[in-house]
């Protein structure tokens, strides 16, 4: 609560401009309204049938249906229908605030680890010198640490983490090409470089305790002739 001196100051200001406290309240409440509405879950994945049909999402739906003791198909249908209604309503009610968020930097969207992934991966950069390939970078491997300061910067890690699960994105090819250019600069003697992404299904605690090793699959592999970058 305000002190008497504060109250007096405020009263003086109100006498001068009686409309100001009301206008300020309107503006502050409008901002609050905007951030609350825009923070409602908005991922495009909610409306994507392809995303719903992914094996991981289907398995999660099955687990939920089992926990709730309901029919699996009916549960999915019910959820899908209500989610589409929700997405439509959300789109309508947030429309007036989108420009506001764009111009003022007040975008919301707090999807953080909402569904931890069950697949992970490792990038490997290999360089060919005198006809022999050797690894110069491997994710989380202290024996191959070329360009680590860049690859381990949080912004680049975020990008690489995204590409691990979406290697089909055009950004993946562009990223690999950028890495190849960096290799060409740092290894002037090298002739070619190979950039691969190995991914695997992460292991359960029981599998780890029994010494099971991840079954890594080569998801994407690209070879670059370094001559073109010099």
């Amino acid at each position, binding site marked *: *609560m*305000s002190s008497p001196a*504060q109250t007096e*100051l*405020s009263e003086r200001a*109100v006498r001068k401009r009686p409309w100001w*406290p009301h206008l*300020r*309240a309107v503006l*502050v*409440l409008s*901002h*609050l309204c905007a*951030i609350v509405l825009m*923070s409602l*879950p908005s991922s495009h994945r909610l409306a994507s049938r392809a995303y719903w049909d992914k094996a991981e999402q289907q398995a*999660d739906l099955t*687990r*939920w249906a089992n*926990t709730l003791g309901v029919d699996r198909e009916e549960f999915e249908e019910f959820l899908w229908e209500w989610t589409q209604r929700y997405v439509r309503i959300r789109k309508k009610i947030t429309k007036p605030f989108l420009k506001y968020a*764009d*111009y*003022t*930097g007040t*975008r*919301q969207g*707090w*999807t*953080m*680890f*909402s*569904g*931890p*992934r*069950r697949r*992970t*991966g490792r990038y490997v950069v290999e360089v060919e010198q005198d006809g022999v390939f050797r690894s110069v970078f491997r994710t*989380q491997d202290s024996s191959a640490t070329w360009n680590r*300061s*860049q690859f381990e*910067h*949080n*912004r*680049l*890690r*975020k*990008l690489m*983490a*995204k590409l*691990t699960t979406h290697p089909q994105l*055009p*950004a993946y090819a562009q*990223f690999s*090409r*950028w890495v190849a250019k960096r290799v060409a600069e740092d290894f002037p003697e090298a002739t070619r470089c190979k950039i691969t992404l190995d991914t695997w299904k*992460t292991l359960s*605690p*029981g599998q*780890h*305790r029994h010494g099971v090793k991840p079954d890594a699959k080569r998801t994407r592999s690209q070879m670059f002739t370094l001559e073109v970058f010099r």
Partner: protein
Amino acid sequence: MRRRWQFFVDLFDETEAGTSLALFRISIGLVALYSLLSIAVAGLVEPLWTSVEYGGMRTLGGNWLVQYLGGPKPGLIWTLWGIAVTTSLAFVLGLGGPISGRIITFVMLQSYNALVTMNPLGSGSYDALLSNGLWVLVFADATATLSVHSRLREGRWRSETLVSAWPRYVLIVQLLLMYSLTGLQKSAHIWTPGGGYTALYWVLQDLGWTRYDFSEMAAWVTPLLRFGTAVTWHWEQISLLLLFWFYCRYTADRGGRVRHWVLRRDWRVGWAFVGVSLHIGILLLMNVGPFSWVSMSYYVLLWTPAEWLSHGRRARKFWRGRVARFGQSRAKKMS
């Protein structure tokens, strides 16, 4: 209806000393500086924020400001970076009065936001939380105290000048909204009791986010990780309830049994204790940028300037007592 409206009009008319806002200003300003400098030190300004035709790693468009200024070219990006760093420094130091200070904040917000929205694949929630904080501070008198402005105007770093309290209230809502909404979106079965609260175990299996490869070690500490998952999930979801405590405190003179029960304990202390513990865990185990530092910067706003001054006095008294006792015991030993 009229009475309810008047409640908000009065609430947003409150004034207080600027200490909490100033501490928040310094704290998020330092995070912004770290964010901007670390990317330059790593040599990633051009690779991440310029388009592929200028040496960047992706085809980029940029936000409205970047597009208006001609697109993500190296010259523009470095200019924006320079402006963002300079204004962040001025912001931390508290340069500028009620008008020029706000202009500095606005320029900092726009330049920072233009950069971090350039490449969505390389942007994090901490950028959004930071720019949300900056936008509110554009309307706050955040340089009133603990600032160069205060030093130049009054000859001392600390000032008793009163500032509007509503920016602090809005920022508290923003913080709690962020936590609750992220909690409510953690709908994967593994976050829930039905899924055995195993989400954190699976998060630690993902090499893309962890600080080191903890995947095998995590298998031996699953009870601890389950406990961490349960605390994180429930704590995040109920965070918005803290607003009820603030409401009860603000209307304490109205009395009532519920209000009395709620106000028996300071909910902020328990809430912040859990929050800080979770963020320490994130800092130790994961590499998600300065997200924890931005979030914890907001925590200072939970306490009023008067409470900060009282905490400061108590801390000083405590340390003076400690030092005095240490001196006495040493003197005794010597004699």
